[in-house]
């Protein structure tokens, strides 16, 4: 016996409501993130002024290694976040984990140096540290806004991971952008105070962003 299916009225309603849509393209999301990063660098230039010694290549190697690692891990996380807006069973987000593990070399090196120095951690004092931490976080706001906007346009289904990676991407890129203005180029300052925003961003992103990303 063949059973007749009752037509679902929802199908007709949704079809009537149909309008053409502009599909989410990975390159558009990446362009948005790059635009936010460029905007952040311009704001840093306006407010703080870029450290020209570093820009012209005369800073210590730690300046380039530190900011380069932040940039690379931020970029890896940002690419993952942008692709999360288009969900798919089979998506994998391994890249940012390895990028973050690589970037973790920086604070580990700073901690080892801190512990090995005469007098140990007790002798360490960095009066600019907190300022750089806060500045790195403030500089992450534009990229955070861009990535959250992109995710809300899309359909992220791994909400906690999306929040975590958004926090990491925004703070790593924000801290790298701010880092272009910071003239303190020793390993302990960069490894501790310029990397710290990423840890704060990861925790904040994991716990504060999911309510904004749920749909």
């Amino acid at each position, binding site marked *: 016996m063949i059973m007749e299916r009752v037509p*679902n009225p*929802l*199908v*007709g309603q*949704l*079809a*009537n*409501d*149909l*309008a*053409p*849509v*502009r*599909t*989410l*393209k*990975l390159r558009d999301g990446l362009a948005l993130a790059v635009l936010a990063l460029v905007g952040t660098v311009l704001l840093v230039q306006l407010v703080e002024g870029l450290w020209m010694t570093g820009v012209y290549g005369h800073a210590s190697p730690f300046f380039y290694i530190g900011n380069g690692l932040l940039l690379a891990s931020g970029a890896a996380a940002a690419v993952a976040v942008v692709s999360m*807006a*288009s*969900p*798919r*069973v*089979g*998506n*994998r987000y391994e890249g940012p984990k390895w990028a973050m593990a690589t970037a973790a070399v920086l604070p580990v090196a700073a901690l080892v140096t801190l512990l090995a120095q005469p007098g140990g951690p007790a002798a360490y004092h960095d009066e600019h540290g907190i300022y750089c931490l806060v500045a790195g976080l403030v500089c992450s706001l534009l990229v955070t806004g861009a990535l959250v906007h992109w995710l809300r*346009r*899309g*359909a992220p*289904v*791994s*909400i*906690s*991971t999306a929040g975590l990676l958004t926090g990491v991407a925004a703070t790593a890129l924000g801290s790298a952008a701010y880092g272009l203005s910071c003239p303190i180029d020793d390993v302990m300052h960069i490894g501790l105070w310029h990397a710290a925003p990423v840890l704060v961003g990861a925790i904040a992103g994991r716990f504060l962003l999911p309510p904004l990303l749920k*749909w």
Partner: protein
Amino acid sequence: MIADEPTLARLMAASQQGDKQAYTVLLTEVQLWLERYFRRRCAPAMLDDLVQEVMLAVHRKRASWDASRPFLPWLAAIARYRWVDHLRKVYRTEEDALEDHDAAEDSGEDALLARLSLERMFVQIPSKQSEAIELVKIEGLSIAEAAERSGQSESAVKVNIHRGLKKLAALVEKAE
């Protein structure tokens, strides 16, 4: 019979351009696919609601499908996301005992469907957690009944549901 992946992808691409006829066919096919997809992992009385919920999500989020990628893994990700959300919301309903459907075996489930299936998610969480979720959230037993049936304490059932749902939410895009 449900349309194949290339046909569904073609219909979805046309729908994104605003083709209402293609969209009607697509949604009808999607409805059939979802009914089959959820049948073994959803209480029968809740099946229609869940399918409609996913269809609305497909409509709202249709811009998030990238035409250069397959359609079904995208649909499955949305379906899994809504399913986990649905399990979180489900409260006990007495008539919701799960019947023994075997549609997947009947239809000769293909490799793609197997890869996308909800079973794949369940086997990746500890058996005590999947058992607790199945008894309470799908079969509709109370915590006390589930504890008695499974041999777990009541608090263990609650903890296993909570942890299991958290793990399922993290597995939505996992294919292995």
